[in-house]
């Protein structure tokens, strides 16, 4: 970015390359009602009937092409929808768009025509909070059953009232046989919620024309566990940290913990000691390897078949990492190792043995990865199955807010570890992996290569930790026993989790628990792209595409 000569894409930027909010405000003109100060960025309060105007202006003129998250919440006097915008080119440039609506008529304009990703986010906002969106193409509930009464995160919701969702009231999934019209030869096929390839309780309603997929609709919410609400009932200091582990049981728990740690540390202004940052970075990357190995192994199940050797190889190689993390955190799945301001405890003694264990794994890794490449990526049958199937063009991926390996498989050079650095990543030498294939094959390749990059990071962390002076090993900052941020402080922060960008929005109300806790699961946005990839292809490709997204229903349904 040139400093002297701002080009057309640099509208709304200061000369140093920061966001110039004043210029943005004048760009938006009368639509802006006011300004708000969030900890991560400034936000414009806009008229509820100008959402599309504002967002498309910010998108096309100022380059905010990433609608990262949509948070809905209810105040005493109003409802509010916040669109957290950022740029795929520069993650540090953020702007919030706050859309207040009145209590008696909570309707605002839908952002769906500008950002496709708003489709699901707004459905969720309607489902949980009760805000309606004018012009939304499909204004239904998304997480809760159609027959649910009330909106659980709204203020007048009676949590003690039993909700009876009888079988009779539920839509019979077997009833409707044909979708498009009665003369057509299409067939509705329910894939899931219990199906070998949905990797959890996902229900995909597929309309088939022979073996070809005419229409796909993912139906989510089967394991909705009120995670946001549970987090709102926990205290910042200790009670929230165990939850993020439960949004990803594929091994990426530590990365999820980091998302909460980062957000809460920004909120409470806590500085993490460097030593703890290095431990976080190392353990986080081990966690990523766990997740990616599982993704690759499970992908072999989807594409190769259910007696594939690759799956077991993947599980075995994971086991080594699993043992390392068990030694470090004491847990194999729900690690709960991070604390606000650092980590729970220091590396296990004897340290030398622990480092040896990690080194041995890193040393063996290239040979093991070679085996995956032999079995999978260089196999011709796998190539004819995955190359050029499940195509996700970069522009479409951006519109859906796709992140993580899904975005990088579509050639989008976007990785928060580098673009909005945290932890120790900016001081280490590693690369962001991108592939231009935009297909199932590219996503597989990205994951395999990211394992290599993670290993590189871990290796450097081990070097650092080995030489770390003993008197300097502070594992936690001095954090007050009770954290009570100023009332109405708002913050949205995210990290690069294994499946994609995991963002958390917190609004405080002066107590030691959050007033609003919103989770942006990477899989939520990634899964939304499935129809774009699968429609017009074969059932087998639908399954392959679904597998290549590597969604985990824990962070989709929350």
């Amino acid at each position, binding site marked *: 970015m040139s400093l002297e000569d701002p080009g057309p894409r640099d509208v709304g930027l200061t000369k140093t390359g920061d966001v110039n909010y004043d210029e943005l405000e004048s760009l938006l003109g009368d639509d802006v009602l006011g300004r708000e100060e969030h900890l991560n960025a400034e936000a414009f309060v806009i008229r509820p009937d100008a959402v599309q105007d504002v967002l498309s202006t910010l998108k096309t003129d100022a380059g905010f092409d990433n609608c990262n998250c949509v948070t809905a919440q209810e105040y005493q006097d109003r409802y509010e929808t916040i669109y957290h915008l950022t740029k795929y080119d520069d993650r540090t440039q953020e702007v919030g768009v706050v859309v207040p609506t009145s209590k008696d008529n909570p309707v605002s304009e839908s952002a769906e025509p500008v950002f496709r990703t708003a489709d699901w986010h707004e459905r969720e906002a309607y489902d949980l909070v009760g805000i309606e969106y004018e012009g939304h193409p499909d204004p239904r509930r998304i997480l809760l059953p159609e027959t649910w009464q009330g909106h659980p995160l709204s203020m007048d919701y009676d949590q003690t009232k039993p909700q009876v969702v009888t079988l009779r009231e539920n839509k019979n999934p077997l009833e409707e046989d044909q979708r498009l019209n009665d003369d057509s030869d299409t067939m509705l096929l329910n894939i899931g919620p219990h199906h070998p390839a949905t990797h959890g309780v996902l229900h995909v309603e597929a309309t088939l024309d022979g*073996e070809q997929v005419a229409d796909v609709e993912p139906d989510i919410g089967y394991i909705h566990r009120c995670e946001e609400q549970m987090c709102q009932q926990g205290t910042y200091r200790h009670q929230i940290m165990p939850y993020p582990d439960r949004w990803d049981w594929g091994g990426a728990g530590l990365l999820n913990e980091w998302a909460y740690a980062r957000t809460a540390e920004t909120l409470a202004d806590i500085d993490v000691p460097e030593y703890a940052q290095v431990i976080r970075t190392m353990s986080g990357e081990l966690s990523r390897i766990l997740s990616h190995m599982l993704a690759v192994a499970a992908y072999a199940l989807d594409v190769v078949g259910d007696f594939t050797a690759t799956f077991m190889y993947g599980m075995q190689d994971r086991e080594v990492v699993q043992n390392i993390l068990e030694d470090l955190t004491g847990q194999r799945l729900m690690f709960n190792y991070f604390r606000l301001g650092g980590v729970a405890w220091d590396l296990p003694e004897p340290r030398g043995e622990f480092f040896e264990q990690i080194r041995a794994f890193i040393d063996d890794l290239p040979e093991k990865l070679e085996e995956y490449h032999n079995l999978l990526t260089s196999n011709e049958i796998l190539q004819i199955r995955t190359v050029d199937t499940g195509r996700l063009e970069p522009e479409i991926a951006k519109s859906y807010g796709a992140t993580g390996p899904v975005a990088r498989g579509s050639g989008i050079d976007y990785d928060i570890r580098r673009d909005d650095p945290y932890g120790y990543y900016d001081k280490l030498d590693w690369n962001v992996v991108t592939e231009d294939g935009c297909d199932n094959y590219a996503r597989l390749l990205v994951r395999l290569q990211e394992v290599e990059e993670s290993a590189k990071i871990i290796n450097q962390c081990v070097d650092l930790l080995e030489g770390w002076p003993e008197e300097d090993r502070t594992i936690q900052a001095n954090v007050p026993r009770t954290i009570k941020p100023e009332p109405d402080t708002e913050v949205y922060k995210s990290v690069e989790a294994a499946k994609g960008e995991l963002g958390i929005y917190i609004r405080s109300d002066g107590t030691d628990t959050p007033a609003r806790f919103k989770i942006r699961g990477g899989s939520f946005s990634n899964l939304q792209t499935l129809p774009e990839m699968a429609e017009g292809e074969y059932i087998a*490709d639908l399954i392959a595409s679904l597998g290549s997204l590597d969604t985990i229903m824990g962070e989709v349904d929350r």
Partner: protein
Amino acid sequence: MTLSDTIAGLLGLNANDPLQFGIAAIIASTIVGTFMLVNVAIAGPWAKRKITATFTDRIAVNRIGPFGLMIIVADAVRLLSKELIVPEKVDRPAWDLAPLVIAGSALFGFAVIPMGSGIQVADPEVGLAYVFAVASLASVGLVMAGYASNNKYSMLGGLRAVAQNLAYEIPLVLTGVSVVLFAGTLQLGNVNAANTIVGAQQATLATVGGIEIPSWYAFVNPFAFMLFLVANLAEVGRNPFDTPEAPTEIVAGYQTEYSSVYFVLMYLGEFIHIFLGGAIIATIFLGGPAGPVLPGIVWFLVKIWAVFLLTQWARSALPRVRIDQLIEIGWKGMLVLSFANLILTAIIVGVVV
């Protein structure tokens, strides 16, 4: 001398009286059928698990009996004692008949297979045609299962199975025909009977370093052998051609709705089919039950188990192709190649021999 003749002789039955010879033939069939079912019983609950486990670095069944072998009994009891769930609106009796057709059709094929050591129920002049005919009957069973189950996954699996079998049956038979061209007969015969398919393979093809290499058709025409192996993988529905079942795509295809004893029959049918495929390969390409030192029946077992091992190997290592790719390989690739092979064979037989 078939097994039926031997039994008739042993029991003092008159081989010229159809009724008496029928009794001998039934006894012979019972022996052969039971023998093959014992093979399947070892293959299904035990060997398959052990083989797959070896490929995937696991241990597999090892708790009951020596090498976990008693799992065969335990599994048989377990499977048979399970509840037989009959879904609503299944099309009976087609739904009930399908497992029988699938398991039975493959078993019929063994009637004419020479297993060595004089074990062969019958040796008709149209032996090879008969084997192909009864083996293809399984397709009828697959359609019945797929259609009668009243389940969309079953339906898809049934349709895939038929499409696949059509695409591979023709190359399979055409490649088999090239052997017929060589032998000049459809009769499978046995090691000692010249002018039969097996008998013709016993001649010496060449002598390398004092070792006589028999003129097995796998050596005479390796191209046909490879074609047949691939077509056979598709025929029995194993990776990379297991699309009709494709558990991660269409749950279990045509066998989705079958439980308990019907499930056992379905599985049994699949395994007998694999062994029948192995038996055909052994008979028409690998010299039948012939081999040095050991008795014929042992060589026969070695050959069919080798083919079984190959299917398990493919299953552990090879990705599955998509249904449209599979059909394409069948009609555009295999069919063309098998015709080429047929013409090539005709030229060789006409010109050289």
